[in-house]
């Protein structure tokens, strides 16, 4: 099968998930992604380099499981940009690349002498995509961030919570994932624009701006109606207000920290749910129609919780699926990866062979293309794994030169 993006080369300074996730998408569709790492600190500008989780008791800079997960399909070279020679090598690489991308704090590329103006001088139609928490302009542009800070600032932490509780937020860096999605979109949009016009550009992606677009109509409710989301009874993240649904929530079930999500979209769903539950409260007039259920939702949830608590989540799921009510067990990682057959059948967890880790499963992509599907065979690169290949085959150095670069601390 052909690759969609095989004609593009990405000079990739990204790290952690927020940047690496973007170039992982491109690599899956055949782009030649060349990761650049610092040999002096063993690539640790990506804090996941050489960090847990591990497959076994071995430890080492090439054995970090998360790093491998986010960097499959990419080549990796080392460049000690403190040396003149490494900067020359980088210039050669930029000259044959379509995209230069990074997710450093503001100013790092400039300090190395590779800001946008310099990149453009090397390659006039270069696409440069930077991704940082607050962008390169504005009062907070010098501030530092990581996923949870982006989520806090943008309102995503606040809206993910229950009434009268502190913010629950996201139990992971949702905006590292999602920042990576917008980062990938930025690269693809800029490539589409260049294809049409021949023009490159610098896209200054601010991850908090992207996050602030994810509130649905809440911000229009603010600008049009003056209604804030910080108000009595809110947030109430497991309920649904647009459109209103009741019951709608995550309910306890038998088992060890087991839960089940149930949603009644309309009167038909409610009546189907009542057919299954068939307890007296289902016939209580205070739950008879949608407006009354919304008005009595706390009481409704108490009754439904008492019913769900006496059954397992999978038993409830089976009963309500048969009845045609939207339902899902809250799946634990092992359940969705190895028990629910649908993810495996979709091919969601491809296995790559890492030179040191061995065979290991990674996150795939949740899509399939009929003509140019994604694929990952290559593992995340070991430190400097492709120095020889990239410098000789792509950049025209001899093996002897590469060996001497290695000796001189350039690579």
């Amino acid at each position, binding site marked *: 099968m052909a690759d969609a993006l095989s004609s593009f080369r990405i000079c990739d300074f990204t790290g952690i998930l927020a940047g690496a996730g973007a170039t992982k998408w491109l690599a899956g569709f055949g782009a030649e992604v060349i990761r650049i790492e610092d040999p002096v600190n063993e690539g640790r500008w990506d804090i996941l380099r050489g960090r847990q989780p591990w497959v076994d008791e071995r430890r080492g800079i090439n054995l970090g499981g998360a790093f491998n997960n986010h960097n499959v399909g990419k080549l990796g070279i080392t460049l000690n940009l403190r040396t003149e020679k490494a900067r020359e090598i980088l210039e050669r690489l930029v000259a044959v690349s379509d995209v230069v991308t990074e997710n450093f704090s503001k100013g790092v590329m400039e300090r190395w002498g590779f800001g946008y103006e310099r990149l453009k001088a090397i390659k006039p139609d270069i696409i440069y995509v930077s991704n940082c928490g607050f962008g390169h302009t504005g009062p907070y542009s010098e501030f530092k961030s990581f996923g949870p800070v982006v989520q*806090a600032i943008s309102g995503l932490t606040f809206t993910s919570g229950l009434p009268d509780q502190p913010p629950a937020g996201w*139990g*992971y*860096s949702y905006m590292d994932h999602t920042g990576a999605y917008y980062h990938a979109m930025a690269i693809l949009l800029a490539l589409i624009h260049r294809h049409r016009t021949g023009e490159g550009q610098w896209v200054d992606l601010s991850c908090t701006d992207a996050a602030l*677009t994810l509130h649905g109509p809440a911000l229009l409710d603010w600008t049009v109606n003056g209604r804030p989301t*910080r108000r009595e009874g809110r947030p109430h993240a497991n309920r649904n207000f647009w459109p209103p649904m009741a019951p709608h929530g995550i309910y306890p079930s038998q088992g060890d920290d087991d839960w089940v999500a149930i949603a009644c979209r309309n009167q038909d769903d409610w009546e189907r749910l009542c057919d299954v539950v068939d307890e007296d409260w289902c016939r209580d007039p205070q739950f008879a129609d949608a407006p009354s259920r919304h008005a009595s939702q706390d009481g409704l949830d108490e009754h439904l919780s008492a019913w769900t608590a006496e059954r397992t989540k999978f038993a409830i799921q089976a009963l309500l699926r048969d009845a045609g009510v939207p339902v899902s067990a809250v799946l634990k*990682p092992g359940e969705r990866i190895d028990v629910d057959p649908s993810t495996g059948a979709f091919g969601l967890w491809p296995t790559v062979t890492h030179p040191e880790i061995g065979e290991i499963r990674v996150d795939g992509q*949740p899509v399939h293309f009929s003509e140019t599907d994604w694929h990952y065979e290559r593992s995340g690169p070991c430190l400097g794994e492709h120095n020889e290949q990239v410098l000789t085959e792509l950049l025209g150095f001899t093996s002897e030169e590469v060996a001497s670069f290695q000796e001189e601390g350039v690579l």
Partner: protein
Amino acid sequence: MTGAIGNSRPRPGALQGVRVVELARDPIAFAGKLLGDMGADVILVEPPGGDPARRYPPFADDEPGEDRSLYWWHYHTSKRGVVIDLDDEAGRDRFRALIATADVLLEAEPRQRLETLGIDYDDLQSIRSDLVHVAVTPYGRADPKSDLPFTDLTLMAAGGPPWSCGYDDHSLPPVRGPLQGFHIACHFAVMSTLTALLHRAISGTGQFIDVSMTAAGNVTTEGASYNWLIARNTVQRQTGRHASVNPSVETQQLCADGRYANTGVGPRQAKGFAALDKWLKELGLFAELPEAVFLELGAQHEGPLDISKIGEDDEITAIFGASRAALRLIASKLSAQEFFVGCQRAGLTAGAVNAPEEAFEDEHFKSHGFQVPVFHEDLGRDVVYPGAPIRLPECPWAISRRAPKLGEHDDEVFAELALQVDGGR
């Protein structure tokens, strides 16, 4: 296109000249908006009577009405709207004529509906051989589970995100980030569309793209998935911070104004402890915190402090303990905003836990032009919308028009089709 509605675009968007046909369904509305705001000519196809989301709250000025749903306004910017009855043969002919002019079909129809109607990818290819057809379903087109009824909440529960989100107290339920089940799927639908369009621009070839909404959730769970894939470990949810195999320290601070701020684990290196020590002294709070002396110790420490040694190594435990106590004390004296800015100025990574509207009114985002007025000629006023997720200077994001009224562009679009059909397509 008609002018005067929406705002003007200083330069063509990245997707200028790309026509997207979107079959109106809630789960993909955001994908269509993203493509439209990036410059595509998105034609939203609704059934007679309109898409149910037209009637979702909240409503403008809290007055329910057909064209007053803010939900509709938000998710359908930069689209033109037409009514086509796909259950009727004449309607399907119109749809085929529209597809003949389209680059992308974006749909989240029930799994077998288009095939049954004779307008699935295989049929449409004979009309438009290089069509990019993006189909979004709960479990993918091949999985019968896609036929089950679903909502954003049930998709999220099945996909994995809620397992990781919630509170230290596990008697409280896991929490879903509202709307994000659909948003995650839409992000993948858009990335797929752009990838396929780029491929088509080079090769001339279109294709069919199968997007699974639950799979999209599954690969948007960070450590929950890879801790299982790599080490068969299950992360446990914790209040306001990463779900983790082993419990970690709290990262949210309650501030003097009753709002929270997130500091992460706080400083880990000498420089950070020194900065915190200095800030504490500047605020005149050093004397209030007896253990602050350990900050001075941390400030003299060489190399990063190993956070995994908390509880094992007395000195490291004391230093991190003092750091958390100092942050907690400072937070108790300042508003969340003051605390956030103060932390950042001291070189400590932190963020105020804003409500969405608080972020929206912040000068930082305003300076990016994030508040975007869109003229609603029917109301005779501007409405301020959230702005660009990505600012592309050479091919800018823009809201080109407000959301369409039902059938608003029937005449315009069908007239264009007639011209183009007559023109020999």
